[in-house]
């Protein structure tokens, strides 16, 4: 085997590419189009010449037809035979595409221009940037969007040490490695030549380009996706040649060999027609599910399929995708002439006058479908037709339908998993007649591919440009922060919203900031990775929380650490942001810490859902917490917790006095702490992954107090406290172990009580300053208030009341009496306070 080289000078392809570039291929293609007209003109002239005595017409006709024929042959020869020919397997230069040859030539030129002796990867990048397709891919990768290409490249060139000046530059070893990598990539992708995209991927072997990718927040996988995305768009833009397509469509046999459908036309919608008339959106992805439906329905005999999945997960989309395949004629032969009718169950079951009319309608519908011979019936929410407990909007037609399912008619049905278990499995015959397909959300890789197909439409519609990073960010934020819809719908909708918003703002390039700010403004939570001011705030979070909380260093440290983990993306995504159990006596700052955290993380104290768990002491009260299913035609009860979290998924949930709740209710929270979700009474899954959950309890207060009096070290206190709670049977070990941190709040010392009083008085002073009155308190006054506001049982809880009664009332009375006026400075001493 000959040794692999890369030598453009010995490449026949390079020589040919020069011919190609010199000839200007575009002109040749334009000339071909022109030659069609010349040929037709020649033929007309020839016909005309038959009626004319003048021989000049026939001569011109001969010339026009002859020259266009000759040109066609020459064109075919040049572009189909002469130019495309990988010649030498051992010389990689022979395996370059014409555009790649231009890139290599350009990189040689740039090297010469910069007076370098060797062609380094940066020069290869300069060459790629000069080519149309290379530039496009670089822009998609976000390269050159914020700075001009030439600036980046020239600054990089300046960084390289110039070895010597030469007229015949050679390829540096690193560049050769890059080209070899490009070749490997082309082979792996099944390409017969090295394209600009392959060269770009090959560049990732150089340290310099790895650094560029790192700066762009891209990796090799992303770069390959960008290159594939370009290939996909290019293939789409060229369209499919009519003669090369696999089929001309479903064929006219569909209409001329099968039956009339008057009953179906009344109670159902022909989805084939909606798709042919462009009334249904194009379906992307979901190939596996669509193929499975096709294979099941193509079976002879009993062949029905039921799609099971939550509402909005894309069951109808899959069926539309299947019908699109039928309409394009891309299905198996036995499926080619099929018409899919979506039965309007509401219309079928309504407006009934006589007993048994529904049954008659259903029988006629199925009879007609069986007679027509090419009908697939699609029932959305199939459970309504075979409900075990028929009520309003539902019947039990399983006995009527069952005979048809065994081979007479094809049926596609959809339902939810819950209804499948409840209604369909209740009729074993019906359940056995269907093949099940469980519809799941597509994963993020699949969503990227779907977006790659949908985003170009938005780009042309709104005149914008989506770099690959923005696509990734879009998927990240929609996965993390949009929970009311499944993928890919939520990503497509968000992309649409972002595109429109960018177009309105006159922004041409969609950057990640725009996506983040749009989502942040919708949900009132920062979605961008913490940086700048916010990062500083996070680092100093303890300080921020201590502005409101006196003492309790351990608690503050635990919650601050959890928040840092959450905002830097280190924590497990499938759990709540943080789960804490705050233990300690009343009035030591447990609730205040929760409020401060809600303000710090979610921007406002209002984003706190407070549930008094003492209201849930009975086992039956669980329904008030998570809701109850509808029963006997009545709507179900709403759950206090589940409804609040569903409405405000970005909240701090404060479970006050958790020890008072029934044990079974505590068990419910195990799933929330572990998986970040809870199924409510109606079967809806509520997402808790964006919540901080804090449970508070007074249990063990006395134990904490005694331990501290005995100077038990902090770590030992925590351990013995947990033992105490378990031994007393207050909390089960599996419950306690689920918390990120169990924090013991200490009783406040005399000094801390004074600090609390100072904190509250400074708040009062701040409020007075708004009225342009400066209020100050003497240390004795603060001491007196601290003493009045402290209670051995309730800690600092009476403090606010004491300040209100003694300080605020006094100031108010003096204000009304005119003793305190605007602009005045007031010093309040212990004597002023009652």
């Amino acid at each position, binding site marked *: 085997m000959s040794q692999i080289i890369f030598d453009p000078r010995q490449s026949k392809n390079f020589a040919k590419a020069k011919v190609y570039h010199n000839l200007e*291929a575009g002109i040749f293609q334009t000339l071909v189009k022109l030659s069609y007209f010349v040929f037709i003109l020649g033929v007309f002239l020839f016909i005309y010449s038959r009626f004319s005595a003048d*021989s000049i017409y026939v*001569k*011109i*006709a*001969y*010339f026009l*037809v*002859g*020259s266009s*024929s*000759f*040109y*066609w*042959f020459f064109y*075919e*020869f040049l*572009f*189909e*035979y002469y*130019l*495309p*020919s*990988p*010649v030498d397997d051992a010389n990689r230069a022979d395996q370059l*595409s014409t555009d790649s040859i231009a890139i290599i030539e350009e990189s040689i030129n740039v090297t010469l221009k910069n007076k370098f002796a060797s062609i380094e990867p940066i020069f290869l990048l300069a060459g790629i940037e000069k080519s149309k397709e290379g530039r496009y891919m670089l822009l998609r990768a976000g390269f050159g969007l914020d700075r001009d290409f030439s600036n980046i490249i020239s600054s990089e060139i300046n960084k390289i040490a110039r070895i010597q000046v030469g007229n015949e530059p050679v390829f540096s070893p690193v560049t050769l490695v890059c080209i070899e990598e490009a070749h490997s990539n082309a082979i792996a*992708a*099944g*390409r*017969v*030549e090295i394209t600009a*995209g392959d060269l770009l991927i090959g560049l990732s072997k150089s340290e310099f380009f790895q650094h560029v990718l790192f700066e762009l927040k891209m990796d090799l996988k992303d770069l*390959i996706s960008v*290159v*594939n995305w370009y*290939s*996909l768009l*290019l*293939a789409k833009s*060229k369209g499919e040649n009519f*003669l*090369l*397509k*696999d*089929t*001309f*469509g479903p*064929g*006219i*046999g*569909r209409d*001329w*060999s*099968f*039956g*009339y459908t008057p009953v179906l036309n009344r109670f159902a919608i022909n989805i084939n027609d909606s798709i042919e008339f462009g009334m249904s959106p194009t379906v992307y992805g979901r190939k596996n599910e669509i193929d499975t439906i096709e294979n099941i329905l193509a079976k002879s005999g009993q062949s029905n399929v039921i799609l099971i999945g939550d509402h909005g997960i894309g069951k109808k989309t899959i069926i539309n995708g299947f019908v699109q395949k039928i309409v394009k*004629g891309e299905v198996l032969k036995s499926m080619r002439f099929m018409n899919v009718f979506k039965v309007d169950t509401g219309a079928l079951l309504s407006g009934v006058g006589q007993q048994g009319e529904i049954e008659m309608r259903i029988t006629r519908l199925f009879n007609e479908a069986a*007679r*027509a*011979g090419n009908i697939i019936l699609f029932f959305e929410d199939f459970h309504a037709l075979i409900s075990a407990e028929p009520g309003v909007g539902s019947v039990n037609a399983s006995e009527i339908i069952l005979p048809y399912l065994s081979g007479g008619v094809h049926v596609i049905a959809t339902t939810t998993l819950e209804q499948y278990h409840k209604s369909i499995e209740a009729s074993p015959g019906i359940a056995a007649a269907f093949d099940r397909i469980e519809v799941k959300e597509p994963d993020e890789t699949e969503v990227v591919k779907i977006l790659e197909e949908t985003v170009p439409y938005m780009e042309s519609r709104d005149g914008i440009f989506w770099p690959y990073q923005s696509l990734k960010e879009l998927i990240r934020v929609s996965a993390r922060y949009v929970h009311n819809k499944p993928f890919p719908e939520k990503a497509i909708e968000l992309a649409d919203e972002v595109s429109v918003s960018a177009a309105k703002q006159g922004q041409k390039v969609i950057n990640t900031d725009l996506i983040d700010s749009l989502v942040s403004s919708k949900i009132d939570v920062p979605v961008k990775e913490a940086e700048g001011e916010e990062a500083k705030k996070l680092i100093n979070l303890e300080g921020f929380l201590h502005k409101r909380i006196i003492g309790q260093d351990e608690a503050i440290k635990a919650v601050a650490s959890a928040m840092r983990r959450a905002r830097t993306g280190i924590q497990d995504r499938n759990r709540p942001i943080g789960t804490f159990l705050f233990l300690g006596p009343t009035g030591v700052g447990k609730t205040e810490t929760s409020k401060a955290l809600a303000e710090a993380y979610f921007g406002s104290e209002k984003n706190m859902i407070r549930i008094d768990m003492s209201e849930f002491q009975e086992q039956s009260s669980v329904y008030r917490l998570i809701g109850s299913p509808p029963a006997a035609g009545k709507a179900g009860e709403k759950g206090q917790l589940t409804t609040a979290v569903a409405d405000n998924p970005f909240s701090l949930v404060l479970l006050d006095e958790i020890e008072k709740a029934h044990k079974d209710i505590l068990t419910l929270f195990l799933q929330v702490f572990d998986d970040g979700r809870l199924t409510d009474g109606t079967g809806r899954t509520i997402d808790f992954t964006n919540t901080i959950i804090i449970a508070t309890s007074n249990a063990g207060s006395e134990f904490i107090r005694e331990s501290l009096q005995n100077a038990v070290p902090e770590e030992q206190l925590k351990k013995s406290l947990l033992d105490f709670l378990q031994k007393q049977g207050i909390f089960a070990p599996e419950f306690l172990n689920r918390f990120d941190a169990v924090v013991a709040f200490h009783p406040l010392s005399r000094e801390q009580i004074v600090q609390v009083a100072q904190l509250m008085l400074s708040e009062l002073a701040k409020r007075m300053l708004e009225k342009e009155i400066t209020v100050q308190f003497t240390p004795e006054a603060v001491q007196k208030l601290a003493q009045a506001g402290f209670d051995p049982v309730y800690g600092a809880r009476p403090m606010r009341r004491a300040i209100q009664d003694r300080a605020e009332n006094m100031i108010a009375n003096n204000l009304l009496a005119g003793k305190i006026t605007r602009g005045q400075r007031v010093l309040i001493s212990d004597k002023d306070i009652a």
Partner: protein
Amino acid sequence: MDEAKPQGFRVFQPNRFRNSPVVIGFFSWWLYEKPAFIFSLMLKNCDKLLDFFSIGILLQTLFLPWKRDEIDTTNLALDDKIRVFFMNLVSRLVGAVVRLFTIFAGLIIVVITFAFGLAVPILFIALPFLGIFLIFNSIFVS
């Protein structure tokens, strides 16, 4: 990366003679490869047309009633049965006529396409001669 296809004029067509001397390679392309490719393309399109005109399914359902519109004769009186029988017969005849017409139309188009498929490769081989002949005639023959 399976969706990535070679683009533009660089479509690679396997050529046994690609690495042979230029003359042999050229003649093999002109006289064999390209005409064979055009012919195979035309054959493929004939197949697609047969499919489009649904000749197979039309033959299978040739004598079925038009739009499968047939009246059931069970429980009918004898004279009604006879009347309905003739109506059903008419429906079948209409179906057969329409389908036969479609089958013939389809077959004619397929035959024309096939003939075209034979003619075009021959024309391609003749293209350079034809061009030279016509240009020569236009200039030198009076």
